């Protein structure tokens, strides 16, 4: 029962998703897995648990989304305390160098399938902090971002709309950032090391 796909202004329909006609008298294990994957997508889409890891200033919008006026629980979304339980990693706002190390560590602790949602322009091109000595300018080099929500501090409506968009992506099976991370793991790793130098930092405070 996935929704009809609608090419949105924002994202081109990725070419990979051609549907191939297959004789249906005996469902091969591959199809069976795929059918089950579709059903699983439905469950994954409608019960998204987000890790409220508030990296930047856009986080102030989340309480609005959670509470009575916009109530994201209608979409089946709940804030969760630990990365193990969460599906979505919210990068709300700029990601500084130190925060990136923690983001990577937390991202790797999450169970798959997992999605990254980036708020505001700071994740896209550094936003207003593009010339700061500590802030990264492109998040998607280090983490596979599934959804960007525009707005320097996106309004709650934008956030809700973004989440609905994410649900559509998941149901249509397009939100495959985590597969991409696994497939191009070394590319991501090299970017990370090049930017951060050493993810697991060892210094006076961590021995």
């Amino acid at each position: 029962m996935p929704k009809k796909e609608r090419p949105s202004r924002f994202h081109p329909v990725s070419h990979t998703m051609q549907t191939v006609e297959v004789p249906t008298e005996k469902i091969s294990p591959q199809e069976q897995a795929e059918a089950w994957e579709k059903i699983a997508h439905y469950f994954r889409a409608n019960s998204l648990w987000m890790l409220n890891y508030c990296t930047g200033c856009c986080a102030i919008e989340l309480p609005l989304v959670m509470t009575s006026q916009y109530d994201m629980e209608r979409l089946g979304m709940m804030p969760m305390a630990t990365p193990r339980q969460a599906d979505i990693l919210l990068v709300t706002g700029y990601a500084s160098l130190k925060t990136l190390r923690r983001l990577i560590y937390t991202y790797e602790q999450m169970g798959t399938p997992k999605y990254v949602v980036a708020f505001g322009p700071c994740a896209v091109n550094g936003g207003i902090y593009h010339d700061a000595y500590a802030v990264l300018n492109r998040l998607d080099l280090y983490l596979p971002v599934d959804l960007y929500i525009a707005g320097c501090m996106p309004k709650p409506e934008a956030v809700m709309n973004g989440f609905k968009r994410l649900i559509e992506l998941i149901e249509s099976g397009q939100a495959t950032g985590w597969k991409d991370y696994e497939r191009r793991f070394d590319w991501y790793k090299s970017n990370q090391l090049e930017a951060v130098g050493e993810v697991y930092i060892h210094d006076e405070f961590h021995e």
Partner: protein
Amino acid sequence: MNALQSIGTGLGMALFGWLLQTTISGVTRKVIARIQKRRGPVWYQNFRDIMKLLNKRSVTHGWAFDFGLLVALAGAIGTAMFMPVAGIVAFKGFDNFFMIIYLAALGVFGRALSSGSSGNPLATIGVMRGLTQNIGYKVPYMLLVIALISYYRTSSISEIVELQRVSGWSVLVMPLGFVVAFISLHGMLGKKPFDTYLAPAEIASGPLVEYGGKQLGILMIAHELSVFIEVSLFVNLFLGGGATLPEFLLKYAFIYILSSSLGAVMGRFRIEQVVRFYYKVPIALTIVQILMLAVMRGGVR
């Protein structure tokens, strides 16, 4: 009822218990949302959560981590099989109170074992708080039930239900006891004032820190089943347990939603306050109740 048939009814009871509790907790999430003036999820949201979790690929910390989990779920299922609901009893004559409490305790121990072996001190602290709280509310609760047992002269739940139908609900026998039992039930369910062991703000959801994917899914199923056991035990012992299914469901839903909505409006106690509270108020009320019962040494049979 031959063995196979009773086991079949038992499993059916466990499944029914899980379905009932998951739906009611979904409805309760909507009620709580209404209390907080927001729309809240669809009623089958919990099913979707559990199914999503079972499809996630998460992390394991060794065989003890998974074994403890299976023991927790097995304990919950095993206990649920014995639970008499609205006249249907899987194993006639064997559903006595102590056995149910101890089999459920086995489930609790399984959960403690698996979260302990996750290696995260937050989990151990969470389990410590859970056990400390457990000793707080279990003692008055079991004392009351022992008073009931000696009053009805039987410890089998289904017989107590029949006796209550004859001589009126136990609420009338032990009004104070009912209040204390409800407070203990509130503690058992881990609702707000007493959810120090799950405190997401303080210890990042306590024992559940390291659970994700199917482990968390199994744990939620076990949690739903144990909630079913506790609430239906409460309903059977104190509210006459329902002659027909709808009556039972009504009482069940009323108690659970009342408890959850109470939880929704209260803040969280600190762990010392929880322990000190449980050693003052409920124990005192229980003793008063037992003295009243001893004085009125009737006994039904």
